[in-house]
């Protein structure tokens, strides 16, 4: 099936985006990215540890992958914009996963600061992927400000709690004509399938794969789940119902009445 996702000026076919944090080693990460045939991969930008001369992570990311630099560490609009510009200065394309997170306990994004940063960065030609606490009105404002996609959280980062924001995200999917990518908190194939069945354009997973007992096998499982969920979304067309609906015919019963 020819199911292409047009996003950020590119055409991709793999709807499982993978984050590169927390992997035990880069070799393992590379194998996980390869087995999932990842096409979109996130990285972060940090101060170089002046004593540490570890390997360059970019060398372990397959060449066909689009790199999306996140603005993690930014607490507000100004910090996020600064990181985005630095990422572009490092010549890594213009895809930015925009995060502005002032809260350390739940890592909840500040939607207002994020919106301000979308406005600035979109005008500067970035492909902006804002990470947001799902809210329809805010998603609409981010779209109007030039976001390339919307990335609502499924549950707080690293919690593995799954697609808890489903009701609101479904609303956003229905109303916002941009790719909707659920990001954060997804940890099981069923979580990913649920997102894709709901009509998400893609999902982004990091912690669950990186910290798995076997990241390579789990990456493969996640890849199947995303494909299954997507295919079901495109083909099923079933609604929820409050009432039972018989699957066998209600005629020709072997009974007297």
């Amino acid at each position, binding site marked *: 099936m020819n199911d292409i996702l047009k996003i950020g000026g590119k055409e991709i076919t793999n709807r499982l985006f993978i984050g590169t944090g927390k992997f035990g080693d880069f070799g393992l990460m590379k194998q996980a990215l390869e087995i999932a045939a990842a096409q979109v991969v*996130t*990285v972060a*930008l*940090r*101060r170089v540890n002046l004593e540490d001369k570890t390997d360059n992570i970019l060398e372990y990311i397959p060449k066909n992958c689009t790199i999306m630099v996140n603005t993690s560490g930014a607490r507000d609009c100004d910090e996020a914009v600064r990181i985005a510009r*630095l990422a572009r*200065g490092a010549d890594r394309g213009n895809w930015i996963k925009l995060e502005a997170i002032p809260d350390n306990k739940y890592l909840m994004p500040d939607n207002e600061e994020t919106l301000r940063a979308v406005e600035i960065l979109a005008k500067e030609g970035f492909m902006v992927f804002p990470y947001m606490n799902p809210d329809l009105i805010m998603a609409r404002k981010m779209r109007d400000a030039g976001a390339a996609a919307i990335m609502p959280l499924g549950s707080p980062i690293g919690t593995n709690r799954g697609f808890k924001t489903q009701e609101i995200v479904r609303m956003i999917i229905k109303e916002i004509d941009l790719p909707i990518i659920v990001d954060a908190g997804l940890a099981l194939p069923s979580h990913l399938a649920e997102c894709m069945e709901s009509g998400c354009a893609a999902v*982004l997973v990091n*912690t669950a794969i990186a910290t798995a007992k076997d990241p390579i096998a789990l990456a493969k499982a996640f890849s199947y789940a995303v494909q299954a969920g997507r295919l079901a979304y495109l083909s099923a067309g079933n609604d929820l119902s409050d009432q039972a609906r018989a699957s066998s015919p209600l005629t020709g019963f072997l009974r007297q009445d």
Partner: protein
Amino acid sequence: MQVKLNGKVEDIKVKTLGELVKLKGFNCARVVIEHNLKIIPEEKLSGTRLEENDVIEILAFIGGG
């Protein structure tokens, strides 16, 4: 002179950003350098003179979600 490098005050003897990067042993292909909040491309490093109290950030990509 004293500059602030990645948040830490350092006493340095070199005069340009290019010399500083070389002294610290960084591969320019993998770092991005900010000098007083301005991004300095690789080809301009040796032409960027350092002054007292300059703020320099040297950053690189790491794993992140």
